[in-house]
């Protein structure tokens, strides 16, 4: 069982966390002005890279805070974690 470093609580067992998919996918400013295709891109399309991936996690079973993490999808290694209001760090 992996340890995930919560930026608020420190390293905790992965079962305490809830996965939230890709990070930095902002809700569109004005959804009504988007074409169907652009809206569908927001709703349904996500990157699925092999390697470092910025994603959202929530420390559900503890502080209940959402945060961002950069995780290597090939090794599961968490390369960085940062709070929602922090800029994406440069890893690698």
């Amino acid at each position: 069982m992996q340890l995930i470093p919560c930026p608020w609580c420190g390293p905790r067992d992965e079962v305490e966390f809830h996965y939230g998919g890709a990070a930095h996918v902002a809700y569109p400013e004005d959804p009504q002005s988007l074409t169907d295709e652009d809206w569908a891109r927001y709703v349904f399309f996500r990157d699925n890279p092999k390697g470092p991936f910025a994603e959202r996690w929530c420390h559900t079973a503890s502080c209940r805070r959402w945060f961002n993490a950069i995780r290597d999808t090939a090794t599961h290694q968490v390369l960085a974690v940062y709070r929602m209001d922090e800029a994406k760090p440069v890893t690698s």
Partner: protein
Amino acid sequence: MSLYRLPDRGRVDRSTPVTFTYNGSPYTGYAGDTLASALLANGVHQVTTSIKYGRPRGIMAAGPEDPNALVQVETPFPEPMLTATTVELYDGLVASGLSGQGRLATEPDPARYDAMHQHCDVLVVGAGPAGLTAALTAARSGARVVLLDDQPEAGGSLLGTTELIDDRPALEWVEAAVAELDSLPEVRVLSRTTAFGFYDDGFVLALERRTDHLGFAAPEHLSRQRVWRLRAKHVVLATGAHERPVVFADNDRPGTMLAASARTYLHRYGVRCGQRAVVFTTNDSAYQAAVDLADAGLEVAAVIDARPQSPAGWAAECAERGIEVRSGHVVTGTTGHERVIRAHVAQLTDGRPQLRSGIGCDLLLVSGGWNPAVHLFSQAGGRLSYDDALGAFVPSSSLEAVTVAGAARGTFQLDGCLADGGEAAQRALAGLGRPTAGGTPPRPSAAHESAERPLTLWTVPDPDEQHAGATQFVDLQRDATVADVLRATGAGLRSVEHVKRYTTIGTAHDQGKTSGIISSGLVAQSVRAGIADLGTTTFRPPYTPVSFAALAGRDRGHLHDPERVTPLHLLHVAAGADFEDVGQWKRPRYFPRAGEDMDTAVLRECRAARESVAMMDASTLGKIEVEGPDAAELLDRLYTNLMSSLKVGFIRYGVMCGVDGMAIDDGTVMRLADDRFLLTTTTGNAAKILDWMEEWLQTEWPDLAVRLTSVTEQWATVALVGPRSRDVLALVAPELAVDNDSFPFMTWREAMVAGVPARVCRISFSGELAFEVNVSGWDAVTLWEALLAAGESYGITAYGTETMHVLRAEKGYPIIGQDTDGTVTPQDLGMSWVVSKKKPDFIGKRSFARAENQRADRKHLVGLLPVQRDILLPEGAQLVADPQIGPPPVRMLGHVTSSYRSAALEATFALALVKGGRDRIGQTLYSTVGDELVPVTVAEPVLYDPEGARRDG
């Protein structure tokens, strides 16, 4: 003393004889024996017959790697699939051999199983020479150390040998080491504990067998087995190595055994495994077994060394004892039935065995080399490489905070193991930033120097060329042979993983500990590839079998999942309610009276609600309080309809959708104050909706000043339903104006009800005049009993979830999650009215405009009335247009989502999702009921009181 038990050797307790029964015969052994050592001491080699061919099979090893000796234990509690080599003997043990398959107990297991969590600086797996040195070195520095070992006592390989450390018998050094470890406060030594899984970040699972070895004497208060969940900053793997055999024809005859295992039986258990032995080897290690057995009085007829040259030092030792050494020879086969009686020996010339001769023996010892036990290392993601000199796979990559020491990394000599352990601990301590304390490293006796490298020989060519490989067993438990491997490669398979699945080699209880690499080697030979390139099959947890009972631990029965009950639960139990699980909640489903089944009880409860008054415990409804200056703004963004316009004192129904426009929950919203709302969710959705709201608040709209609080448990809620509900409420809330003008539909009032403070809502989930009375959980019983008493003259009737479902379905109110499945929009539910056209945006709005959401043939929620009015459609039944079902694929129009008997309609009815359903109203469709198709009429979803006349009483 028997012929096979030596009087002066071994660590068994001769003062404690133990009687046991095997395959129906009584035997005697000693405390400290395993079932296998006790059987061997009684001259019993055959433990069972094989699963496919019914061939006699014996004990091959002395540890968990044994592929053969599967037994069923009957006492004190039946347990299948244990290995005789790991079952510790106890008085009254009854066991029998298994042909590959065991039998689970039919009665419940009375034993307890539990789990422990432990954190440490250094976890050492294996208490052999390397592991003990590592643990000592780490512990002396003050580190928190856990040392695990699967045996009843520490020592590892030293338990089965005669080596010296610091000029004393090695086991004296072991004893002193364990005593020192036990004296240190930060050290925990766990014996009978097998590390079976190594996961990420130093997380190791281990199984401790706490009372198995006590048999009938096991104290009841102790858990039988315990799973240790260990988290270590550094893990030292000192897991040792497994000896592997060489494969030859009829290599499965009882009496054929791994050489070092026979040595272990001799030194550790004082058991001589036979009277006349032949030793077949490809490396030096088996010579020690030959010499030790000869010194113990066994006749060793010959050492057959496949290498062209035998090691000079060992050859001399053999000569001293009159043991013939035949180098350049191999064992090609055996004779015998229940026991080997002759080994067939032939010279190996250019890889071909020449003319064979027989050597009589009742014990055939084999050594094909040693496989480092890399299982845990590999599980943790470590890479392996093939070591040509050892003929084995060894750890090749480095894992962070993991060190492999001793035989587990291919260091087989004692001096190397002792040095390795110390270095591993130093590496761990350096990583932890701890200095290493002093201490003299242990010094072993000198080992035999050898110039002869081990020979890698997977299999001896089969002299029977007609049926080559047919009796050359690779995986004895699976009865899989060299011929099977060749059949696999002949079928074009190259991957060792594919060959494993094709032949089943390595899939039994032992997971190929002795056979896996032989299979890889054979595949490599057969497809002319390098074994280094083919690699091994994947090592997966568990290292040894772990029972589900142990994994479940205390999480069994009613402890399996938390049970949530309302403050009224005990009253419901006393009233004889039949309960159903809704999420983790226990909810009364119906309240049967004497002689009633569910249908009868529900019809009665429904009539009471529609004709007089009835009440239900609705406390499980999810309740979330939303507070803050931006509370109304948040709700406007999340609900499809407008909430900010709701006035204090009023209630509004609302639906939430995902960004894809699909309904995810519905409920009511009460405005408690300008900046305070209380919303309700579907019982099973409360946590999910709180998560959903928090997610948007934290990730998209952190600028909104809103707090969310789950208040589900703070409030007990009783629904008071029916034309007489107002009269009953008036009796228990004399100060509350309950008439329709003072207290209209979809408003709430604070009032004293039954003498306790309450929040009363005029909400209806049945279409009847109804109230929901919310009180503190502490006051729930007072409220419930007061309502029962006040309603007595009206025949007030408690009802459960089943009646609630019938009442709501009669009104066409959907349950999100039952009548929807994540592909249903509010419009599909016929609830366009709940979707705001004024709000510029809310979650889901943009998706409603997608072409897919505009299709005329989307599935709509409709009512169904079976033409034959008493047929109850099964929920989930498919609907078709034509009763003449042609060949598949048959076009399905939808399915039944809810189906009940209605007292009010005096008929059965259903809700269904049907393609273009609203355009089919009045049409006849057909629904499956068992093997039949029955006609049903599509109807509006609101089947009862469609004009809403009953709402205000």
